[in-house]
């Protein structure tokens, strides 16, 4: 264990959306820590709460969304204790985010360079236009885009180039924490891979921490050293990525289900198995463990009690099966 201060501490965070049919609990009691210079993946299916959690870290929850419990510390600083001015400085300088629809985030009527200069000028008012211009060109170099594209408008660039620019802007002020919400999902695999390689390279060089959000299990386990798996607003497992193989049976049943559901490119045995049932509806969440209606190992206790994360062989798993006191309940599971 390192005694360094973590870059990000998410402590017991819950977030609800107020809706016409009552509050929808999109995130429930999430705990997650990111160390300096680390890449942690956050995976989960559509609607599991990944973006909601990311927005909460950035303190970007709007309108109907509300933090209903918990605390978020970035470099020891409670994000929700910052004044609006402090928060403005804190974003970009200490933490930044690449949004899920990143490519549409670029302003269509401004050149690439103007948008980069804007970021520098508004967050580093002391910086001269000349220096901001120079730094913008360096940002383009950093993500290997020809400097001649400084004067291009977004529509003149390919999807991959736009994505690189959005990533460059997120890194412009050298933050300690960068949240990337599905940064490559809309791109072709070759472009995706070259951007991921670049992210890895930059991360190694500059040693910032990344919370990388995706629904692509194989991609995340290649990129991140640790992976947090979310289901219906809760973390069901946090594990080192090397251990995320079917050869290792010590996992949450949902994690195992996901691993079986994905055809693998090179595995000899290509048999796959879907997870029965349907993804949960947050408005009528099942009682107890939200996964129990789809879980092959579920027993009566799973319908009654919500399991919490407990340490199991070096990973954290929220499943009653691993609770020694409930062992008797699972006599039917081998």
């Amino acid at each position, binding site marked *: 264990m390192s005694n360094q201060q973590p870059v990000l501490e998410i402590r017991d965070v819950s977030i609800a959306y107020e809706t016409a049919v009552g509050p929808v609990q999109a995130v429930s009691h999430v705990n997650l820590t990111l160390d300096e210079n680390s890449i942690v993946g956050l995976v989960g*299916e*559509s609607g599991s709460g990944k973006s909601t959690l990311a927005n909460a870290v950035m303190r970007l929850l709007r309108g109907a969304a509300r933090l209903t419990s918990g605390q978020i510390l970035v470099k020891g600083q409670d994000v929700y204790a910052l004044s609006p001015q402090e928060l403005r400085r804190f974003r970009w300088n200490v933490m930044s985010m690449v949004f899920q629809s990143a490519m549409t985030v670029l302003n269509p009527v401004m050149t690439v360079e103007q948008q980069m200069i804007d970021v520098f000028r508004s967050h580093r008012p002391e910086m001269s236009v000349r220096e901001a211009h120079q730094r913008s060109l360096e940002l383009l170099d950093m993500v290997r885009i020809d400097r001649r594209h400084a004067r291009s408008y977004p529509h003149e660039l*390919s999807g*991959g180039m736009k994505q690189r620019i959005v990533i460059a802007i997120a890194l412009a002020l050298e933050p300690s924490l960068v949240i990337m919400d599905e940064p490559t999902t809309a791109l*072709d*695999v*070759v*472009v*995706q*891979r*070259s951007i991921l*390689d670049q992210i890895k390279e930059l991360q190694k060089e500059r040693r910032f921490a990344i919370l990388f959000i995706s*629904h*692509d*299990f*194989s*991609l995340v386990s*290649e990129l991140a050293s640790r992976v947090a798996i979310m289901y219906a607003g809760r973390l069901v497992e946090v594990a080192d990525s090397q251990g995320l193989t079917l050869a290792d049976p010590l996992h949450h049943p949902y994690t195992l*289900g*996901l691993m*079986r*559901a*994905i*055809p*693998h*490119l*090179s595995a000899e045995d*290509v048999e*796959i*198995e*879907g*997870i*029965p049932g*349907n*993804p949960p509806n947050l408005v009528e969440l099942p009682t107890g463990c939200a996964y129990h209606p*789809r879980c092959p190992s579920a027993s009566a206790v799973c319908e009654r009690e919500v399991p919490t994360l407990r340490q199991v062989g070096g990973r954290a798993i929220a499943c009653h099966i691993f609770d020694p006191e409930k062992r008797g309940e699972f006599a039917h599971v081998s």
Partner: protein
Amino acid sequence: MSLNHLAQESSGAPLVQVEHLAMRFRLRGGQWIRPVDDVSFTIDRGEVLALVGESGSGKTTIGRLLLRILEPSAGRMVVDGRDITHIRGRQLAEYRRVAQMIFQDPFASLNPVKTAEDHLLFPVRKHRGGRPAEVSAVVDDLLTRVGLTPVAETRRKYPHELSGGQRQRLAIARTLAVEPRFLVADEPISMLDVSIRAGILKLLNELKRELGLSFLYITHDLASARYFGDRIMVLYAGKVMETAPARELVAHPRHPYTRLLLAATPGSSHQGALPETANIPPNLSESRQGCPFAPRCPLATEICHETMPAAEDVGSGHRVACHHLEA
């Protein structure tokens, strides 16, 4: 009435034969692009051909040509013994009973104000006729076939009351209502949640095995192409780069573009930098010359920029179009 109608005759000829297929489009500027260019392939009865390639490489266009939603600019397509290249009117309507399409977005392909049974009653009645009780029994069969049970409950549901996976199952049931022999499945799982994709892929696999259906499976995901495809055909900028039995293609790719694609796919054993020299979007212009991959290819020489290589058979059904095969 049984859904198992394909056990009959197998004439030996492939179900689908495509020769020198081409499609040109005129862009607003007046120039012509050719996103499908001299494409030839066959699909046997009960066989799945997976078509992979990056966005804009012409996959959907090939699917639409095969269903004759588009009429080709050149080439010939024979399906189930009939030349469908330029058919119209009644012949085209008849062809809709042979070939059907499964779309990426099941929601968009269903009618929001119709129940699940409405989606099936009409095509079943039209296609097979019969008394109401018989038609109704076929609808039950179809729903059971695609795993939408209990049937009585599903019949009354509207698309918005079904989950994404269930909607795709309903869309599949509808294509089966006319007892087709050939399905074009265009990215049928890419919009679905990860946990339910496997279920749909397995269903398609069952339809292939149990009904003997043939598929053109369009995807950009090599892992699912390897799982469902008997063979994989790799397309780049509208031209076929390589075709091989699925496992062979993944284990022994011969074309530099296939190697690049494989190296970039999550889960591949490839380590280190990608084998490519530049990341240039493909040129679809009709006046282009040579191999369309040449501007990005690490092996490219002068000849690659001048002449498109012919596909060469390298054994066991593995065909590659590359001037530098020895590498």
